[in-house]
C-alpha cells in the first residue's frame, strides 16, 4: 500500500463521529488533569489505558493520544495562573507567563501559550507524518544486535538525563529490565521467577505496573502538600486570541522552538522539560532585549510552549519506527498499541498502515481540538485549579484499583498496583528515579529477545556487537554517557589542584 492511500485510509478511520467525540473528550480530560499541579500528563495516560480495553484500536489510541496532547498543554494553565507548572515541561512557561498574568493580562499570556502550543505541536506532527515512514524503511534493515545496542543506548541516556546520580538511575533501569524478565522466557516460553504462583507464570500485568509506578508515588507525594491553599487569577476572555501581526512577529521564534522540540523528542530520554528550557534560552540569546526575559515577555511563553508541545510529535518517531519509547508517556502509548496487538516497529507500517497513519493523524486532530477547546473554554479549565486536592486524590486512587482490576479481573493486579506503588514511592524518596525503571520494564523483553536472537545467529559470540558500525556507534554513545561524569570530575579536580598550586 502506498503512502497516500495509507494516509487516506487513516483519515477515513479518524473521521468517524465516535473517534472525533473521543478525541474532544480525551483532550478536555487531558487539559483538566494537566492543569492541576502534581497530576501529570503521563499519569493521565496511565489512568486512561484501562479504558482502552473496551474500545477498538483506533478508539483506544485516539483516547490516549488526545489525553497526552491535552495534558501537555494543560500544564500551561497553572504555570501562568499559579506560577506552578502543571506538568514539569511547563517550567519555563512560568518565567514569563506568570509575570504577564500578574501584570493584569492572564488572558493574553494564556493566548500566547495556547497558540504556540498549537503551532509547535502541528509542526512536529507534520514531521512525524513525513519522517516516520522514511525512518521505518531504514529500521527494517537493522539486525538483532543493532536493535539491542540502540535499546541499551536509549536506556543509558534516559538514566543519564534523570536528575539523580547515574548509578542510581541505572540501578532502577536494571530493576525495570529484571521486572520485564518475570514471566515466560521470550524464546522458549519457560516460566521464570514465578515462585510457584500461577499469577506470576504469565508475568506482571504491564498496565498494573504502570499505574502503580506512575500514579501511586505521585499521589502520595501530593498528599504531603494537600492542605496548602492555591491562589489563582481569574481569566477574562479579552485578548485571548493573539493578533496575526503578533504571531507573524514571533514566526522565527516559533519555528526555532518547534525544531528544537522535535529534535529533542527524537532523542530518547531527554524530554519536554529540557526542550522548553533550551528553546527559552535560545529565544533569550537571539532577542534584542534579553534583559526583559523573565518580566512577562511573550517570546518566553511562546518559546517554552512551542518546544514542549513539539516534543510530543518527535517522541513518536522512534516509537513507531523502532518500537523504542523515548519517554514514559511514549511507553504508555506503546502499551496502548500492544493492547491492540499492534507491535510498534518498522513492520507496523507494513502490517497495519491505516491504523499507523490514523495514529499519526490523531495527533493532528487532538492538536486542533486542544486549540479550540482552550480558546473557547479557558475559563472553565482555569476553574479546575480551584478544586481542592483533597477531593481529587481519593477518587484517583479508587480509579487506579478498578483500572488495574478491570483489564484481567484478577485481585493480583490490585496488589501489584499497591506493591509497586509503595516500591516506587520508597525508591523516589531515596533518590532513585522511576522513569528509567518504567522504560526498563517496557524495553526489557525487546532487549532480551534481540540479544538472544543475535547470539543464536552468531553461535554465542558477542563479537558482532563490536564489529557492526551501528552497534559500535550506539554502544560508544552509551559508554561515553556513562564515563563522562567521571572524566568531568577528574578534570575538575585537576583544575582545582592546579589553581591551588600554580606551576
Amino acid at each position, binding site marked *: 500500500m502506498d503512502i497516500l492511500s495509507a494516509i487516506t485510509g487513516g483519515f477515513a478511520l479518524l473521521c468517524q463521529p465516535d473517534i472525533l467525540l473521543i478525541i474532544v473528550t480525551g483532550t478536555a480530560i487531558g487539559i483538566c488533569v494537566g492543569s492541576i499541579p502534581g497530576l501529570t500528563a503521563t499519569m493521565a495516560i496511565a489512568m486512561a489505558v484501562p479504558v482502552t480495553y473496551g474500545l477498538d484500536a483506533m478508539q483506544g489510541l485516539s483516547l490516549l493520544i488526545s489525553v497526552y496532547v491535552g495534558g501537555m498543554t494543560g500544564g500551561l494553565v497553572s504555570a501562568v495562573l499559579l506560577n506552578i507548572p502543571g506538568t514539569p515541561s511547563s517550567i519555563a512557561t512560568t518565567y514569563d507567563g506568570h509575570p504577564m498574568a500578574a501584570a493584569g493580562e492572564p488572558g493574553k499570556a494564556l493566548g500566547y501559550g495556547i497558540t504556540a502550543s498549537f503551532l509547535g505541536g502541528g509542526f512536529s506532527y507534520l514531521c512525524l507524518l513525513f519522517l516516520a515512514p522514511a525512518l521505518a524503511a531504514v529500521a527494517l534493515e537493522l539486525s538483532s544486535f543493532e536493535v539491542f545496542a540502540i535499546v541499551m543506548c536509549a536506556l543509558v541516556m534516559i538514566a543519564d538525563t534523570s536528575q539523580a546520580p547515574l548509578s542510581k538511575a*541505572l540501578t532502577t533501569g*536494571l530493576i525495570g529490565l529484571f521486572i520485564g524478565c518475570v514471566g515466560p522466557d521470550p524464546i522458549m516460553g519457560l516460566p521464570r521467577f514465578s515462585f510457584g504462583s500461577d499469577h506470576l507464570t504469565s508475568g506482571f500485568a504491564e498496565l498494573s505496573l504502570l499505574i502503580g509506578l506512575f500514579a501511586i508515588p505521585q499521589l502520595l507525594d501530593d498528599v504531603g502538600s494537600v492542605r496548602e491553599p492555591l491562589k489563582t487569577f481569574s481569566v477574562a476572555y479579552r485578548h485571548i486570541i493573539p493578533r496575526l501581526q503578533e504571531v507573524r512577529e514571533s514566526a522565527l521564534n516559533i519555528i526555532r522552538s518547534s525544531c528544537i522540540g522535535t529534535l529533542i523528542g527524537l532523542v530518547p530520554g531527554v524530554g519536554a522539560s529540557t526542550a522548553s528550557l533550551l528553546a527559552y534560552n535560545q529565544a533569550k540569546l537571539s532577542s534584542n532585549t534579553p534583559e526583559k526575559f523573565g518580566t512577562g515577555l511573550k517570546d518566553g511563553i511562546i518559546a517554552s510552549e512551542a518546544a514542549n508541545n513539539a516534543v510530543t510529535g518527535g517522541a513518536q518517531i522512534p516509537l513507531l519506527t523502532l518500537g523504542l519509547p523515548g519517554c514514559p508517556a511514549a511507553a504508555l502509548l506503546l502499551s496502548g498499541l500492544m493492547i491492540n496487538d499492534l507491535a510498534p516497529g518498522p513492520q507496523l507500517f507494513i502490517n497495519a498502515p491505516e491504523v499507523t497513519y490514523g495514529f499519526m493523524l490523531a495527533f493532528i486532530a487532538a492538536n486542533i481540538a486542544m486549540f479550540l477547546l482552550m480558546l473557547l473554554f479557558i475559563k472553565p479549565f482555569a476553574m479546575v485549579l480551584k478544586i481542592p486536592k483533597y477531593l481529587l486524590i481519593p477518587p484517583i486512587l*479508587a480509579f487506579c484499583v478498578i483500572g488495574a482490576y478491570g483489564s484481567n479481573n484478577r485481585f493480583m493486579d490490585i496488589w501489584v498496583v499497591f506493591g509497586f506503588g509503595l516500591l516506587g514511592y520508597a525508591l523516589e524518596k531515596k533518590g*532513585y528515579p522511576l522513569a528509567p525503571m518504567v522504560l526498563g520494564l517496557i524495553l526489557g523483553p525487546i532487549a532480551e529477545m534481540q540479544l538472544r536472537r543475535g547470539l543464536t545467529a552468531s553461535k554465542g559470540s558477542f563479537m558482532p556487537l563490536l564489529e557492526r558500525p551501528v552497534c559500535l556507534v550506539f554502544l560508544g554513545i552509551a559508554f561515553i554517557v556513562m564515563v563522562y561524569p567521571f572524566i568531568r570530575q577528574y578534570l575538575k579536580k585537576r583544575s582545582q589542584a592546579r589553581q591551588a598550586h600554580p606551576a
Partner: protein
Amino acid sequence: MKRLLSEISAPFLILAAAAALFHHSRQLPPPRFEPMGPAFFPQLVLKGIIVLASYTIIKALYIYWKTGRREQSSSEAFKTAQSGRGNLLPAVTVALFAGYILLIVFTDLHFLLLSFLFICVLCCVLNGSVRSCWLPAVLSAAGVVAAMYLVFGLLLGTFFP
C-alpha cells in the same frame, strides 16, 4: 551515622534482593535449543544491579569516611525533624488504601459501596476537618461512583470486584 544508614539502606536492600534472585535464577533450566538459555539475561541484569548497588554503598561509605561525622550531625537532626513531620499524612493514606484493598479482596461488600466509603473517609482525613468537608466529600464520592458505574460497568462491561 543516621544519614549514612539512610544512604546505604536502599542499595543494601537492593543488593540483598538481587543476590537472592541471582541464587534463585540458578534453578532455571539450562539452555537447550539456543546457546544462552532462559537464565542468561536475568543473570546478566542481576549482576549489573549487584555491581551498581555495591558501588553506591562503597561511595556512601567513602563520602562518610572522608567528610567525617561532625559535619553531618547538624543537617541530620534538621532533616530528621523535617521528615518526621511530613510523613504522617502519606502513611495514613497508605494505611487507608491498604484497608480498602483488603476489604475489596476479602469481603463480599460491593466495590462501588466500598469506593464510596473510601473516598468519603480519605477526603475527610486529608482535609483534616469532617465538619467542613463532609458534604463535598459525599458529593464527590457519589459523583465518582456514578462515573465508575457508567464508564466501567455499563460502557466497558467490566466486572466489579
